[in-house]
């Protein structure tokens, strides 16, 4: 395998998998928010439930 091919393979892997790593870190730094009404729906396993209002 040529040096140019090795360098391009490493760049491609670093760019894409590195981007994925950063995106996952960003999600970890921003935990999701849930409001009470949605928590009720999720408690039903995400199924359709009659309106709570």
């Amino acid at each position, binding site marked *: *395998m*040529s040096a*140019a*091919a*090795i*360098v*391009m*393979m490493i*760049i*491609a*892997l670093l*760019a*894409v*998998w590195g*981007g*994925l790593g*950063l*995106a*996952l870190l*960003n*999600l970890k*730094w*921003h935990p*999701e*928010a*849930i*409001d009470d*009404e*949605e928590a009720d*729906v*999720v408690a039903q*396993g*995400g*199924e*359709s*439930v*009659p*309106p*709570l*209002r």
Partner: protein
Amino acid sequence: MSTSGKLRHPLLNVSARPQREMWSGRKVFILAAIGSAVGLGNIWRFPYVAYENGGGAFMIPYLIALLTAGIPLLFLDYAVGHRFRGSPPLALRRLHPKAEAIGWWQVGICFVIAVYYAVIIAWAGMYVIFSFTTAWGDDAAGFFTGEFLQVSDQVNVGFDFVPSVLIPLILVWGVVITILALGVQKGIARTAVVFIPLLLIMFIILVVQALFLEGAWTGLDALFTPDWTRLGDSSIWVAAYGQIFFSLSVGFGIMITYSSYLRRKTDLTGSGFVVGFANSGFEILAGIGVFAALGFMAAASGVGVDEVAVSGIGLAFIAFPTIIAQAPAGVLLGVLFFGSLVFAGLTSLISIVEVIIAAVQDKSSWSRARSTLVVGIPLALISILLFPTTTGLNLLDVTDAFVNSFGIVAVALVAVVAMSAGFSALPRLREHVNATSSIRLGRSWQIFIGGVTPVVLGYILIDTLTTRISEGYGGLPGWFVGIFGWGMVIALVLIAYLLSKIPWSHRSAIHDENIHGPILDAELDANIATTDKTTGDRAVLPGTAASASVPGDGERRSQ
């Protein structure tokens, strides 16, 4: 928007219509979205496209296309689905009444893709079994078209069924309909939570095994050696944008549907970056695995990699079986490769069929189970009737080529032009994304969607159109291509228009004035009021929460 009196105020909504289903969290949404994006094309299309278009140099236009078209389009779909809480027809109708037909066009495209996509999964399932005995022997090509598919010499539509395709196809539809009948969380989400990690583990083992084959590094050398002179060639930029576009499942309704099941305060851009990079990460991994294996095939045959490099069905069902027959521990390689195709294909097929089910459910207000059966059974019957036959291969080939080139590309082009120039919806959608997301979108996003994407999609569409008109398709008879190629794509547009004219059920979600609920709407509007510095045209957003639930909101915006 007209509503019945009892639905007029959200807090007094006493309708018995069920609430919209919801993902249990963003983790399962991300896994389901990755499952949709990672499909057969990641495994059998990307490696060859990269190899044919400059090798290592292709990675530069590829990454630029990912950041300037793929991920921005993903955000657009997320914004539409999350803001307007519906399948494509409902979400786009809420965006603008005239946009509903675009949504049905996307649903029609999903219908056509689903009927043939299931067949390829059935083939892959059979090849998992064939791998144990290398049933194709020394002639993988002859086995595939002869003994296995029993391809007829006649180009027509026949009903001479091939049991070895028919039976696994029935099983595929049984699995897909069962999963979808279970619903968003219990069916789609739980499948993604199991299948996606399993797919990743299987593919990593496959790649490691392929890297230890003789000649593997020669294959990788062919894939990654950069041909910098190609960067000046417009065709590799078009190929890069095309690969990103087809790979990410954007533009034909899947991501609109999936994001409609998200919670109100979901980080759309944070989730989108994970999905976009995970999809590309899998493609690069697939490129390494496939070209390592092709390097072995070339070494074993004493030829160059250029002589064995293929894509699509030829790669999966002819080249790979040849490799499996020659490689040490070939059975393991075969089970991992075809098993990966099955898992990647199933999660994608589920997302495609879900678009149709969600659209029918939204319009009719039927239950989940009823909508699944009303959609799933006819879909399965058409698929089972037309494709597991001795004439099914040509039909699949034409349908796939035309629905991709003139279905997905055309509807995505129309949608982005309509949303950017027609309805001027991009500023509002950007505000919506920014109100709930960790990574804020700037004006560059609007430029990518309203400028870069239409130019690229328009070029791809016109280029393919002129080629097909002048050269036909694959040497197939004109009447066959006319009916199942051109006729099919034109029919999709006409049917979409007619479906948009059917009245919505009086119990359907279109009559909801409040989409997100008063709490988030107030927050969104406050956020928009403080961050919005744009004064240009706005989209017509009839009956949306933002326009209906907050008193005095309309006046405030117009100031």
